[in-house]
């Protein structure tokens, strides 16, 4: 295999080049048409890129390419464009549909136009490499391996995995969470959160109905009932002889310290994402209803307001602030956010632990949250304040009387 591959067509490229210089306009046009067709069929990105300046952003137009089990995108074959017919390859259609669902989710729920907010084209590459056990975002597009059938099945088989990868692009274009240590774990968590929300939104599931699993449809196809990660129960997604027990922590006291290297997963970004994942899950179920509405909006606005180097406590504080701005300070949504971070042992900056504990109790009560609990807590606070004001007024009156 080499880095470049000859273009396979009946007329050699150098003759087409010559024909482009022909004095006959029909010959020139025919040569140009042939070159463009060849480029399109082979997915020749080098040629396509020369037209990008003239192309409209595209409102997230989808294009799926087939890598034919090679690693080189320039050799990939066009498999399904936005306006093209359905493919005979299920992996192509799954990728195409999942890209569309993710794009529509961001558009309808958050009024976000594609990954960059400006209609960025969505390119997906299926059958990447030989039985590759991975899917990833390369900074510009998504690539999906076929899996080896033991660790993973075809990676296009999971909607939340595809949404997870696409959300890496959203994060890059918003907070830009640096992919190391805690900010890297936040980056990973954003992808799990919005990946799961895309799935819940597509199924119209309420928070309490969702499975909160990542990759259940593709991870270890020979083992039923497990998943790559569990947002509800980090650390309990899988337990098998080949991979052992899911090592994700669900709270800060179980934070895993790994070296900031490739082998150390850049400081454990895929490990410690379990902590903010659990915080989101708790927030969503305590607010109740559709998780993409209140909880999702709080997280999305916090993502946009965050900075690249933010740590867990920074992000927790931002979600608390956003909950107050969006739904009212002291309301049940903000109380749910507070109690969730409290439970995973991430303190909110500016909220003393004692206060957090009292408000958390109001939010989760006997394990569940509700608007009534939140309102009741608020009413109690107002009642206490009233009592104090009344007492103060009495004291002032008494003081006046003694003069």
């Amino acid at each position, binding site marked *: *295999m*080499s*880095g470049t591959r000859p273009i396979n067509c009946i007329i050699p490229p150098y003759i087409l080049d010559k024909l482009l210089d022909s004095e006959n306009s029909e010959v020139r046009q025919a040569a140009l048409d042939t070159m463009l067709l060849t480029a399109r069929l082979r997915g020749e990105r080098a040629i396509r890129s020369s037209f990008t300046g003239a192309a409209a952003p595209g409102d997230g137009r989808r294009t799926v390419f087939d890598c034919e089990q*090679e*690693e*080189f995108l320039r050799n990939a074959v066009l498999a399904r464009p936005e306006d093209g017919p359905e493919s005979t390859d299920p992996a192509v259609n799954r990728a195409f549909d999942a890209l569309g669902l993710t794009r529509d989710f961001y558009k309808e729920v958050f009024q976000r136009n594609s990954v960059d907010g400006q209609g960025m084209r969505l390119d997906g590459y299926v059958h*990447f*490499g*030989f*039985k*590759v*056990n*991975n*899917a*990833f*975002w*390369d*900074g*510009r597009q998504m*690539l999906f391996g076929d899996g*080896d059938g033991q*660790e*993973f099945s075809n*990676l296009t088989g999971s909607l939340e*995995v595809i949404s*997870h*990868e696409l959300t*890496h692009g959203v994060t*890059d274009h918003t907070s830009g969470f640096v*992919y190391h240590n805690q900010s890297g774990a936040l*980056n990973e968590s954003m*992808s799990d959160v919005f990946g799961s929300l895309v799935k819940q939104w597509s199924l119209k599931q309420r928070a309490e109905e969702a499975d909160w699993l990542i*990759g259940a449809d593709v*991870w270890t196809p020979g083992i039923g009932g497990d998943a*790559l*990660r569990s947002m509800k129960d980090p650390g309990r997604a*899988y337990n098998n002889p*080949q*991979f*052992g027990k*899911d*090592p*994700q922590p669900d709270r800060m006291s179980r934070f895993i310290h790994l070296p900031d290297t*490739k*082998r150390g*997963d850049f400081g*454990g*970004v*895929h*490990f410690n994402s379990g902590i903010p994942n659990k915080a989101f899950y708790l927030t969503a179920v305590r607010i109740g209803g559709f998780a993409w509405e209140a909880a999702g909006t709080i997280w999305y606005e916090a993502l946009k307001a965050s900075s690249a180097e933010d740590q867990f406590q920074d992000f927790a504080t931002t979600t608390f602030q956003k909950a107050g701005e969006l739904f009212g300070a002291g309301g049940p949504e903000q109380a749910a956010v507070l109690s969730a971070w409290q439970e995973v042992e991430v303190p909110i900056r500016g909220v003393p632990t004692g206060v957090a504990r009292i408000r958390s109790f109001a939010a989760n009560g006997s394990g569940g949250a509700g608007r009534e609990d939140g309102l009741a807590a608020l009413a109690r606070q107002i009642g206490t304040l009233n009592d104090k004001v009344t007492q103060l007024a009495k004291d002032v009156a008494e003081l006046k009387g003694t003069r």
Partner: protein
Amino acid sequence: MKVALESYGGLAAAAGLRRPPKVLDTTALPAAAAAELARLLAAAAATPPEEPDGRARDAMSYTVTAQDGDRVTVLEQSDAAMTPAFADLLTWLRKHHAQQ
């Protein structure tokens, strides 16, 4: 010569820490296959690795370690920045191990 392939990182990085390296011994290979592997290794070692731009997320990395007596060759590349020569070597190794 012993050739070990390690895969780490990627979407399943947390599980991957337990992924053991896949090792083969060329003395157990047919002569033609051993020669092909030696050729692929030499080609991959002779090609400078591409520099990743740091924008990839969930990309998997690979280390190929070839030990021939006292001589050890270590090659490391990732999904997001891979030379054609390394990709050829990786595909050969994957296909070999898939048949085992």
